[in-house]
């Protein structure tokens, strides 16, 4: 697993990890990130397609995008709460 950060975007490469580890990697990155960061999680475990949205609902994070790539999924998550909540 490697991480690289740009201005406001943290990429978490969880490819090769299986449940519950992609969600753990996401949660660890969310803990470290500045509020308002965009977290980009790359995962190839199909379980992530259920558990990343479920984690977002439990942690009041916002799932901004889910892209199906040829050999993995790309999830974009914002840890700020949506407006009005």
């Amino acid at each position, binding site marked *: 697993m490697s991480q690289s950060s740009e201005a406001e975007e943290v990429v978490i490469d969880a490819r090769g990890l299986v449940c*519950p580890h992609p969600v753990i990697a996401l*949660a660890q990155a969310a*803990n470290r990130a500045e509020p308002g960061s965009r977290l980009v999680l790359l995962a190839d475990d199909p379980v992530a397609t*259920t558990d990343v949205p*479920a984690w977002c*609902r*439990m942690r009041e994070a916002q799932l901004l995008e889910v892209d199906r790539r040829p050999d993995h999924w790309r999830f974009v998550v914002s840890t700020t709460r949506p407006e009005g909540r």
Partner: protein
Amino acid sequence: MSRFVLDCAVCRPVNEEIGRWLATSAQRAWAPAVAGYHEGKVSQALLAQSAATLAQLAGGAVAWFAPDPALALRSAVAHITQRASLPLITSLVDTVAVLDTVHEAAARHGVSEQVLGVDSDGRIHPDALARLTQPVTMVTALGNQEIGTLQQDLGPWKTSTGSTVILDARCAFGWTELPDYWDLLILDPRAWGAPAGASVVVARTGQAPRSDFDNVPAAVTAGLAGQRWVAAAPRAKEVAGSQIATIRRRLQDELSGVQIHGGEPDDLPHILSVSVLYVDAEAVQTALDARGYAVGSGSACASRSGQPSHVLAAIGGLTSGNLRIGLPPDLGEEAVAGFVKAVVEVVTEVREQMGTQNL
């Protein structure tokens, strides 16, 4: 060390008394029910008597047996579909046995099939139901075996569309009042502590199809255990409902990052699904097992198939770190307290081992 099996939604341990009934039945009903001599006729009579008992307990006219739940479902679907070629409908949260049976039967009988979506509680989505305006054959569960949700009242829909309902009451029988909207009912006596081998189809009206079912000892034991269960169920409902409420409340209070399904007033009283963030479900399940508590899991890592629970996925639930609890009817209060303590300690330990305790 005491041992507590808390994975009783689908099947319960066979206790000593029911084990003795099985042994006695095996001796009395050893002969094939089709044998044309006295002993065969004894087997035939015992089989018929047990079927009649179960039909009466469920409020139906007739019942028949099948060797396992999937074959009971197949028999029920064939019973309806031979008379009327209606589309077969089920839902996303029904059991794999139901989903597979509907799929195979649709191909075999040349009818269409549809798997309906559900709401976040796991009930057939009202909009999906409202779109079904023509007669169909619905095959669905009365109570969900993983999350305990009771199906919405399908009666008005059934009446207005002239549909047929095959109701899978395997884990709900005794734990809740049976509704009156079913045409055929599927039961599995393993759910009330009878041995495997004699699953049941009950028909509200009509006659049983011809059957070569031959596990008479299992069928006889199923009927006896069924009578015992129906008598015990009213008290069991109250006790389990209160115990599930305790487990639910305490786990929510004492653990962070838990998501719980079941244990609401409209749910089956004995079922709870607990998903815990940042733990390996198999590690938690194994550690609880070592402490004397057997629980199920809907997590991919703890399943033989390597697939997460399709029920949790359908309702948008967390599939990792999942524990499935199905209480038996005779659990002591000390076991409930011990179980909650064990879950809290084991989750804490596993999180420490995984370095996720501060997430």
